[in-house]
């Protein structure tokens, strides 16, 4: 591993820290900025993923669809106040083609409701591709694969 590899690993670790920091701090308006314009985003379960089924619980094929998701959460959808705490680990660069890379990472999300009730809301992994664009790394494709097929109550805040 040369110095460039190490720098790249730090950049990617930093990106994931920023990404989950944005979600956990409820700064959702910044969330679409982590993606390229034509980004694809999908949340699915391991069961669907392993069966090759294409369904997404949240399914977007553009950055504007992510903006719309945030607008809907802010203006239209009704859900109880809640916050996520992401724990991200085992970030791995599985393919490196210079300006484009593919990563895998594990995550755990603890969800805390307004009354203080805390649950392990989700665990799983992300399978992402990114490219370097003006100012930093952006997601071209983010696939969130949940270990469980069950969602407790509802899935409002993105992952």
């Amino acid at each position, binding site marked *: 591993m040369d110095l460039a590899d190490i720098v790249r690993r730090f950049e990617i670790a930093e990106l994931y820290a920023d990404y989950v920091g944005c979600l956990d701090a409820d700064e959702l308006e910044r969330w679409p900025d982590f993606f390229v314009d034509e980004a694809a985003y999908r949340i*699915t379960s391991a069961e669907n993923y392993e069966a090759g089924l294409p369904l997404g619980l949240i399914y977007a094929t*553009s950055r504007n669809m992510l903006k*719309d998701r945030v607008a*809907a959460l802010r203006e239209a959808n*009704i859900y109880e106040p809640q916050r996520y705490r992401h724990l991200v680990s085992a970030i791995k660069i599985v393919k490196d083609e210079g300006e484009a890379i593919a990563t895998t990472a594990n995550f755990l999300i603890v969800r805390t409701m307004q009354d203080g009730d805390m649950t392990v809301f989700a665990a799983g992994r992300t399978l992402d591709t990114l490219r370097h664009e003006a100012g930093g790394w952006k997601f071209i494709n983010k696939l969130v694969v949940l270990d469980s097929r069950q969602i*407790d109550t*509802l899935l409002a805040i993105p992952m």
Partner: protein
Amino acid sequence: MSERTEQSGGFTPALRWPSEGEARVPYRVFTDPEIYRRELARLFLGPTWQFLALERDLPEPGDYLTNFLGETPIIVTRGKDGAIHAMVNRCAHRGNLVCLKRRGHADDLTCVYHAWRYDLAGNLESVAFRRGIQGKGGMPPGFRLDQHGLKKLRVDSFAGLVFGTLSPETPPLSAYIGNLIGARIHRVLYATPKVLGTTSQILHNNWKLYVENVKDTYHATLLHTFFTTFRLSRLTAEGGVDIAESGGHHASYNRNKRDPDPAGSDKLYAGMPSMRENFRLADPRFLDGVEEFGDDTTTQILSVFPNLVVQQIQNSIALRLVLPKGPDKTELQWIYLGFEEDDAAMTARRLAQANLVGPAGYVSMEDGAVGGFIQRAIKGSEEECSVLEMGGFDHVSDNTRTTEASVRGFWHAYRPLMGF
């Protein structure tokens, strides 16, 4: 079975249904563990048909999957004879689960505990060490395999959907569903279903609160503001609700393109607080629905008593199965469908429109939460009642959606089965 439940359960004090009939629902039916136990016995193991699987889930002999009748675990198989069978997933020996996996393929069904082996129709084929070892032990000579099979369900199919019932009294499936609702199921499931994906939502409420929500056409325009906020459809559009004679099944529908009074609708919309000028989706392409069903119906939400929902919202098609998991817990299974005949563009459209429904759905997210809100709110008020007078007191079909007739219909079907 139900009488035995009553005796051993000590079902007291009896629930007295209010004199207003189905226009009132005692909150206790959503909280009382004794009522819940009676529902499992009388509704879920009683004379009702419940969805178990898609025929397409079991293409080959030996394919199996598991599901539930109420809380009772069920195995559904494709037998060697090509027919679909369903049995209680409980070994006739000592009550162990026979199938441990949610789905799989097997030549026979063998209990892991003592290797009692059943064929794919649930008939007991062999018992390990039945003749004992070296002349000792073994089953008594009078033990007969044919008296110890898995408990079998009656099974029937409708529009590719497999239903099961444990009661010999349940009418034939097509008569149970009836022509009115049957035609509306065929309308949606007009081709060969293909599963696009599944998920499951855990709701912290009694199962009937979700069923009420599905049958409640009145809330859709009020709780779910996605369409109004983004000025995507007019809730004043033509629509109505069809209700089966039994009251138990319903189909609500609307035709967004047909608005009988556009001027009045404009006026109504202008006053809505959630409306904002120039507030539009940045990328509304995912809502580019196509006319698929030939009747301009943009949404049809249908229920088959007691716990199946068949949904069409634009081109998003899904089955929802409402499974009770205790007086205040429900599992909502989602099966998102397309058709084998779909082209790539139609599949892409269905996947994009799936954003509207499910646990993260733009128009159904709230349904996951509202039942839990009610469950919390009615604590300590179990002797009080909800009010269901929108649209009057009856449970008949109507050409408006500002009615709770289909919710009353559910209770009309529920009460005699429960003895309330």
